[in-house]
């Protein structure tokens, strides 16, 4: 059964007296255990789409079905309860945490709010979550500011999986990390998916990252979905101008000499 079905979603913003379509009649689906890579340049509307999906922004038109419910019709306590099933990991993790929080309190919040485990068992669950994302249990007492960027992103992932979601929206979740750490975080995400059947909507401007983890890729440009297809099909045989531009822009390792003053040395 399809986990998520977005149909004819639209959102307009006013800009300088003009109405600009940030998301323009977008439809897409996501199956359980699947990763959909949503790629586009700045201003393509991909983050707006993710924010509507997270119910951080209202849509102007269209519908979203999630776990067979009308996701946009949910409100109040119902919405808060259902949020456990759809979590989000952001690019700037420090901005997503209370800067005075400890690692334990960051992980305790979702366990408490969504009543995942009884209070007495929470420390054990926090230790298990930390262990699952590759951090020692002793990290629980550290301040969120003391840990490195990569460790903080692991904690954000631990927080996201704490409520046992079926879908995690990853918004540029590895873009701010050093390349050597980036690969390890992507590996962790893939492991968690295989183990728990979580679906990911992975929003990024970096096709090389999306290629590593996505089963399918959807390309956005100027608010519209220009193409969707299996990962290899989109990358090896792109149909839209936007997809071609994104593919062309991925830096490649060049090992032949370049032209310059050093050529003649």
């Amino acid at each position, binding site marked *: 059964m399809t986990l998520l079905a977005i149909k004819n979603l639209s959102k307009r913003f006013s800009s300088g007296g003009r109405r600009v379509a940030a998301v323009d009649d977008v439809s897409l689906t996501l199956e359980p255990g699947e990763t959909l890579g949503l790629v586009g340049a*700045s201003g393509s509307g991909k983050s707006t789409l993710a924010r509507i999906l997270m119910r951080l922004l209202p849509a102007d038109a269209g519908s979203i079905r999630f776990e067979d419910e009308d996701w946009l019709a949910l409100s109040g306590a119902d919405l808060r309860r259902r949020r456990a099933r759809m979590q989000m990991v952001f690019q700037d993790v420090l901005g997503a945490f209370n800067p005075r929080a400890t690692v334990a309190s960051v992980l305790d919040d979702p366990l408490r709010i969504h009543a995942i485990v009884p209070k007495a068992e929470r420390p054990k669950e926090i230790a298990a979550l930390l262990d699952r994302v590759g951090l020692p249990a002793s990290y629980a007492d550290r301040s969120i500011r003391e840990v490195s960027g990569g460790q903080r992103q692991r904690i954000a992932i631990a927080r996201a999986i704490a409520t046992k979601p079926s879908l995690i929206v990853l918004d540029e979740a590895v873009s701010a990390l*050093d390349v050597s750490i980036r690969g390890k975080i992507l590996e962790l995400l893939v492991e968690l998916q295989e183990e728990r059947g979580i679906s990911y909507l992975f929003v990024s401007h970096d096709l090389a990252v999306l290629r*590593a983890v996505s089963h399918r890729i959807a390309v956005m440009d100027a608010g519209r979905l220009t193409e969707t297809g299996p990962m290899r099909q989109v990358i090896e045989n792109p149909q839209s101008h936007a997809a071609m531009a994104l593919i062309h822009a991925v830096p490649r390792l060049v*090992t032949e000499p370049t032209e310059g003053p050093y050529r003649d040395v």
Partner: protein
Amino acid sequence: MNRLCEIRDLSVTYRGQTAPALDRIELDIVTGERLAIIGESGSGKSTLARGIAGLLPPGIRLSGEMRWSSGQAPAPGRDLGFVFQDPSASLNPVLTVGEQVAEGARRHLGLSWKEAHAHALRMLERVHIPQPDKAMNAFPHQLSGGQRQRVAIAAALAAKPGILIADEATSALDMVVQAQIVSLLDELVREAGMTLIFITHDIALASGFADRVAIFKDGRLVETGPTSAVLASPREAYTKTLIASHRDLTTPPLIREAGL
């Protein structure tokens, strides 16, 4: 090969820190080359950029030497242009685009405001800003991130410096705009015969157009050499790790693909 600057035994320690941000660096900068300084966070690459530009904050401990072939350090703004990662932080939000680009030309080239404005317009054309005459009167917030970075580049180059330092100048931009800005920098540096010092965390990005690379880690210079030599046969384990960590569209995916 003309040495522009010889960096010898350079160490920098920030106030309140015990570990040096740069540790006994030995590096030559060659006139007219495109030198990429590559490293991850905390490698010291931005400290080196600021050191070369004379932009280190007061209160640091500095030892070693930077010997400039001209006998004196280049004046920032006049002899040396600097492009930062975040163009909205380096542009003045209350000045028009035209005023900020003209300012450097007026001050360092001794032009009148009128001449400086004409010069600024030509600079905006050179960095391929669409409708440059209109952009002259725009404020930075009215432009996209990529256009703002073009303005920052125009401002950095307004006084015709011989050296341009780009410190993660494309990291805040999306991939498509990043590729455009890199090709713009490449074009401008070629045209003017400038020396480009390109600071980046992305070894692949540097491999596409740098003549020489210098790899930094934890404040130390790990390895340096012509780009093709370092990329084809890296000597140091860390350089090998950096190259192996690179992902592009030929790297095998991490997921199991259906039907394969």
